[in-house]
């Protein structure tokens, strides 16, 4: 019998990945088990018996991927459910103890967000150059579509900066603990 995949859409903010984890657990308790995650917040679930699974997200960019990482998690009883743009989805039957955590100290939680920040920061100069270039161009040539594009890239830059700041803020909160 072909397994039916149930598609759900949900935006998830990089600095609030714990909310994502809680949502995936709720879905599993209702019998919807994550089968695959795809970019732009697309989730595919497989319907089955309700099960109390904890889900944990780690961020490991492509360049840092290695087989020892996956083996260590598997040895510790975690199942790799999927990957979405560097986010690793892990799941395990809930025990409501420390064994439900993949990160058991503050330093490693901070390091996760630092890995994310390092990747996101790479694209910041590109966005800034894009906005500046188009600014110069749109002053010279007054085509409405160029102005539209300019507004769009400024919006993108602002959005991007907010994301970076929220992640920085999250790191600061973790440092204070």
């Amino acid at each position, binding site marked *: 019998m072909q397994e039916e995949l149930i598609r759900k859409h949900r935006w998830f903010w990089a600095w609030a990945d714990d909310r994502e984890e809680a949502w995936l657990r709720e879905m599993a308790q209702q019998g919807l088990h994550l089968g695959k995650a795809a970019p732009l917040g697309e989730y595919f679930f497989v319907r089955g018996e309700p099960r109390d699974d904890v889900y944990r997200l780690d961020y490991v960019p492509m360049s840092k991927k290695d087989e020892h*990482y996956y*083996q*260590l998690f598997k040895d*510790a009883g975690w199942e790799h459910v999927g990957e979405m743009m560097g986010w690793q989805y892990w799941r395990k039957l809930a025990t409501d103890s420390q064994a439900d955590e*993949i*990160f058991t*100290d503050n330093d*490693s939680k901070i*390091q996760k967000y630092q890995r994310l920040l390092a990747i996101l920061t790479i694209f910041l100069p590109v966005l800034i150059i894009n906005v500046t270039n188009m600014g110069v161009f749109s002053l010279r040539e007054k085509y409405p579509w160029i102005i539209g594009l300019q507004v769009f890239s400024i919006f993108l830059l602002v959005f991007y900066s907010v994301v970076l700041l929220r992640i920085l803020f999250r790191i600061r909160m973790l440092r204070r603990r």
Partner: protein
Amino acid sequence: MAGSDVRKYLPLTESTYYILVALSEPMHGYGVMQKVEKLSEGTVTIGPGTLYGAFGTLEKAGLIRMVKEEERRKSYLLTARGRAVLKEQITRLAIMNRNGQGLLGILD
């Protein structure tokens, strides 16, 4: 008195301390997790994400080195520097413990 190259790593966090203690003999990741749980009598649990990161950090700092790799599992062991750091930490803990033991009776 230990050199500054040893002191800069001190004090170790509880997790790091137990990881180094476990690596006084060659051991792979999951082995370390189980040993720490046992040694600490269940007071310290190390998750795989934390341990994977710690292996990288400690190897870079030259406190541990990889000694074996089989079936996608790496085994690590303390280096000379790692042993020196652990020794200094144990000495400090012993001093702290001596100071505390005398107080145990009167703190209740």
